[in-house]
């Protein structure tokens, strides 16, 4: 119960008018940067970081982390309304959120997204509060083979559990892996596929690709098909919110499963991105009606959002305890900590109790305040859909371009974004799923590095992936998931055979 006492102390540190005002300010700014596609959390926090230099560390980090929460909430808005994910983990939210918005259920989808974000982060904060010391030692168990096993699990679950034709998933994933290889190879220190261009040196940025693949291609499709965003009838009232909340208990299994996946992948350093995809895929797998996913099912919003926020929150733990940021935004926060002389590491929890528990307390408060803030603004955001497409489309394209440019201040990235827009359009036309492509692009490099480091370490034997219980069970699970359709069929066949024998 020591944690409980410390947490109360944290609240005491926090509950001053000044801190509360900063918190609100941070949340509003965060939602704002989250809504602009591409600007997102990392850039928002980076821009506002110097503002906090004159504050004391606790106020400063409270404000920055509230920008972070705000950006997380805000990211869902563009995913659902415009099919443009702001952060890597918002991609899965578009699968069902966008169709819902098109069916005129934008308010419902947004409410679902915000509520599940809240639940996911709440579970993760509880976990951080009570299990922090144990989790840090769990994260230390991850060496290259374990990392690779986790990435393999993500890839395999995609192929095995995906709805699309397997060969198309594999094609899409392979193309993503190919593009992930562009740039400097960390293991050999050599350049690959840059063809002498200094623009290609830094590789293909994931967010640039995502903005193009989802945002621009959507605009192209809309222009071709109907020149109007469907969503005029978005009914918006307290009733919608309460309606969604009333249905929540029905989805408790999904929420719990996604929270668990999110926490688990979040504390795995660098694993946060995979969480939302896995949450979505598993929800679909275990659903009685998997066919309805991707067509505007509310569970398809609950599942990835809960997992994404659980992991986004849990990812702060390896950052504080080990100095390894789990996401782009966490990386900027890490830089901020160092300015105030708070070096992340095992001793941070011992030497800077005020700070750490103030931060954890701010996660509770920030989440509650954030939820109220975004819910009250749902009508405003949903009403964007009522603006004629001809007016909204240019604004979306411009903000996409600004977002793509802002990531690395490179004009080249805008061309890249447009290129990916065309690729996304073509993929949608010929029915190749975009999600495996983006997943491979974001995890391909890390998976490759982890695999090659494992091979260097083990002297080239694959046995290293079964060398201890942890890595062995993850790898085995990955392979089971890969062949799941086959296994499923064999089992069903057996059961039928047995039943037939009985009769």
């Amino acid at each position, binding site marked *: 119960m020591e944690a409980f006492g410390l947490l109360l102390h944290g609240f005491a540190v926090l509950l001053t008018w000044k801190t509360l005002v900063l918190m609100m300010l941070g949340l509003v700014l965060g939602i704002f940067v989250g809504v602009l596609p591409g600007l997102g959390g990392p850039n928002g926090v980076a821009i506002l970081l110097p503002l906090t*230099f004159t504050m004391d560390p606790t106020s400063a980090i409270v404000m920055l982390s509230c920008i972070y929460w705000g950006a997380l909430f805000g990211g869902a808005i563009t995913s659902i309304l415009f099919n443009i994910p702001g952060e890597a983990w918002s991609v899965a939210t578009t699968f069902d959120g966008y169709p819902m918005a098109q069916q005129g259920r934008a308010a419902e989808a947004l409410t679902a997204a915000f509520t599940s974000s809240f639940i996911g982060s709440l579970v993760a904060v509880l976990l951080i509060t009570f299990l922090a010391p144990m989790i840090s030692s769990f994260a230390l168990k991850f060496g290259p083979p374990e990392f690779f096993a986790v990435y393999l699990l993500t890839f395999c679950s995609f192929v095995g559990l995906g709805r699309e034709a397997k060969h198309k998933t594999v094609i899409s994933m392979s193309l993503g892996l190919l593009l992930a290889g562009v740039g400097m190879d960390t293991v050999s220190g050599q350049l690959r596929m840059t063809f002498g261009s200094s623009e290609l040196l830094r590789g293909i940025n994931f967010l640039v690709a995502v903005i193009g693949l989802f945002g621009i291609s959507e605009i192209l499709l809309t222009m071709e098909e109907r020149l109007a965003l469907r969503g005029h009838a978005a009914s918006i009232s307290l009733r919608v919110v309460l309606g969604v909340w009333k249905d929540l208990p029905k989805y408790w299994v999904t929420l719990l499963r996604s929270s668990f996946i999110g926490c688990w992948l979040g504390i795995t350093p660098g694993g946060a991105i995979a969480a939302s995809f896995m949450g979505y895929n598993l929800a679909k797998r275990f659903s009685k009606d998997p066919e309805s996913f991707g067509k505007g099912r509310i569970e398809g919003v609950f599942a990835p959002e809960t997992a994404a926020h659980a992991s986004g929150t849990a990812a702060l733990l390896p950052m504080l305890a080990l100095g390894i940021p789990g996401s782009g935004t966490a*990386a900027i926060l890490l830089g901020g900590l160092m300015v105030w002389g708070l070096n992340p590491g095992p001793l941070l929890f011992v030497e800077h109790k005020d700070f750490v528990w103030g931060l954890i307390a701010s996660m509770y408060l920030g989440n509650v305040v954030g939820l109220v803030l975004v819910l009250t603004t749902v009508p405003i955001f949903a009403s964007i859909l009522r603006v004629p497409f001809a007016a909204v489309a240019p604004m979306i394209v411009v903000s996409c371009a600004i977002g793509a440019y802002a990531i690395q201040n490179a004009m080249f990235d805008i061309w890249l974004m447009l290129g990916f827009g065309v690729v996304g359009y073509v993929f949608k036309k010929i029915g190749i799923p975009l999600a495996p492509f983006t997943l491979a692009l974001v995890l391909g490099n890390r998976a490759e590095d982890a695999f090659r480091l494992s091979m260097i370490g083990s*002297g080239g034997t694959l046995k290293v992936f079964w060398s201890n219980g942890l890595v062995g069970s993850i790898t085995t699970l990955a392979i089971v998931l890969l062949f799941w359709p086959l296994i499923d069929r064999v089992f069903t066949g057996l059961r039928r055979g047995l039943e037939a024998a009985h009769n």
Partner: protein
Amino acid sequence: MKAAMALAAALCGTPAYAAWEPTKPVEIVVAAGAGGASDQMARMMQAAIQKNSLMKQPIVVSLKGGASGAEALMYMKSSEGDPNKVLIAYSLIYMLPLSAKIPFNWRELTPVSVIALDQFVLWDNSAGPKTVKEFIDAAKASSAPFKMGGTGSKREDHVLTVFLEQKTGAKFSYLPYKSGGEAATQLVGNHTESNVNNPSENLEVWRAGQVRPLCVFDKERISYSGKVTDTQSWADIPTCKEEGVDVQYLMLRAMFLPGKVTPEQQAFYVDLFHKVTQTAEYKDYMEKQALKPIFLTGKDMVQFLEEDDAVNKSLMTDAGFVAK
């Protein structure tokens, strides 16, 4: 206090060559990822400049760690004539063009000043061997080669590993991670047997008693004798030479402007970073991260760079890391 600061600012700001000053926000370009040694140093300078009001324009840190830092080099190269960008450079300016054939030469940039020298220390897990000799013996006796973690491939850490092998006859498999922070946690988690991190990269895990410094790759011991852990200070770490392994390497931390800036612009930054080295933030940082303070500029700096370049080139050639 405020009056004292204003006075100090007035004294420092004597308009000897106040002919030019930035009219736009200044960017400190970091050739590494978030949280690494370069990033920490850039943030320290950002805070030192803002807190002491050394410059009217705001200063921002921009991380350009893509392609192992090559992104930052090419960015500086393409910013010719832009006096609002300063690169915080380290030995990658010599090594990257050799190992990866990046079309970059530091002589195309405008040198401002060398502001510190960074140390390298041989670390092992605190559960591992206690001295260099025991460590080397254990490495030789081991059936599988010891795993040495480091940052990047064919760079400082990798070079040091190769020289450690040559001097001792022990074999290591070198695991290139993306950052020093990662190399540190991998050592704590026992996924590697050792690393050759900079002091700043392993400081926190050392203080937590999770890793042990075996020796420092310098001619002399680190000068700071304030206690870092309960029992040890930086000065308590023996040099590798004392321990019978004669390998030495120091890494520069230096500021560069893009090429083709005017002498007035260069002078402004020489003055600015000189003032930074006088601040409490800088001094505090140097001691905490066990850096060697140094301030070189003008001809001294160019001479230093030329000699350092030659040393690095011969090390890279001997290690076989120069791309054909």
